[in-house]
């Protein structure tokens, strides 16, 4: 074994200036690394946050769907029928051209048309009133029967208007 002091010459050893210079270079080299570590940590927690958010969203959607299905299953049959009836009328109204808009373009009997328009307007108002009153929870058989009648009358009027060419399809 040779003593380092015996082996190395002063020229082999770093001077104080050399040590300082090297440390400055090292500091420059490791500082961005620290920032980058910090950035990676931030990015990782951001990714975790995003993943947690997605999971939370999916869990919420799942929960809402399950609750909705449970509520729908718990609905009485009458309410389900009412709902279906309302949906059917709404769908029908959507595909029908607006009676008011088309009636003016289709004379020949302006008096009868005006009368039908008035009937429809009154029927719509009555249906709206009843819907508002029931607010989707009133299951009174009388109210349901009344609503069905109104829908039925409205459909009959619309049917007559189509058959007699008073509405352009």
């Amino acid at each position, binding site marked *: *074994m*040779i003593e*380092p002091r*015996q*082996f*190395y010459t002063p*020229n*082999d*050893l*770093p001077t104080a200036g*050399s*040590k300082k*210079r*090297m*440390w400055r*270079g*090292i*500091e420059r*080299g*490791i500082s961005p*690394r*620290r920032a980058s*570590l910090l950035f990676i940590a931030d990015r990782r927690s951001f990714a975790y946050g995003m993943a947690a958010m997605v999971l939370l969203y999916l869990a919420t959607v799942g929960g809402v769907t399950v609750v909705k299905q449970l509520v729908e299953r718990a609905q009485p049959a009458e309410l389900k029928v009412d709902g279906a009836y309302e949906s059917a009328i709404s769908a029908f109204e959507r595909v029908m051209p607006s009676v008011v808009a088309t009636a003016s373009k289709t004379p020949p009997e302006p008096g009868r048309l005006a009368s039908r328009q008035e009937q429809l307007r009154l029927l719509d108002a009555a249906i709206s009133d009843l819907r508002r009153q029931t607010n989707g929870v009133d299951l009174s058989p009388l109210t349901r029967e009344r609503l069905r009648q109104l829908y039925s009358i409205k459909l009959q009027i619309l049917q007559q208007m189509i058959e007699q060419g008073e509405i352009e399809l």
Partner: protein
Amino acid sequence: MQEETLWISKAREGDQKAFRALYDLHVTPLFRFLRQFTSETAEVEEWVQRTFVKAFEHLGSFDGRARFSTWLFTLGINEMRMDRRRAQRAPFGPIAEEDVSSSSIGPEEFEWDETMRVWMRDLDETKRAVFVLYEVEGYSHAEIAEMLGVGESTSRTILSRTKRYLKDRWRNEGIKR
């Protein structure tokens, strides 16, 4: 040693002061060792800087099974080798297997003489590295083998051949001086 372990664990967490303490402890041995392979001070400084930056970046991979200095020297030697490859200078690598069969020379048969310093420059870098690491820096053959990527027995043989070479040359030329 315990202090060093503490600095390492703090430096791993990004503590620059702890890393500075490690630098202060190891910069001189690393510098003087690498200095044996170039006459350019700037080149040694460059290797040392890169070695410490790499050490900081890869502290997580240091498992503590070897000494920290062994790990650091391995990084330093790799930095030097990389530069050697880039500059296409003399190779600094493991010696061929056929070279690893030589008569050995016992520790009692070798004595360092100042004149041998000059002949050290004539040795290839692997021989020079093994000699300095074992005889001057006090690393074991197992540690040297890890640093240089050679077998432990290869390290022993290289050392033995190097010492024989220096001794023979000293007998032939040194005594005349």
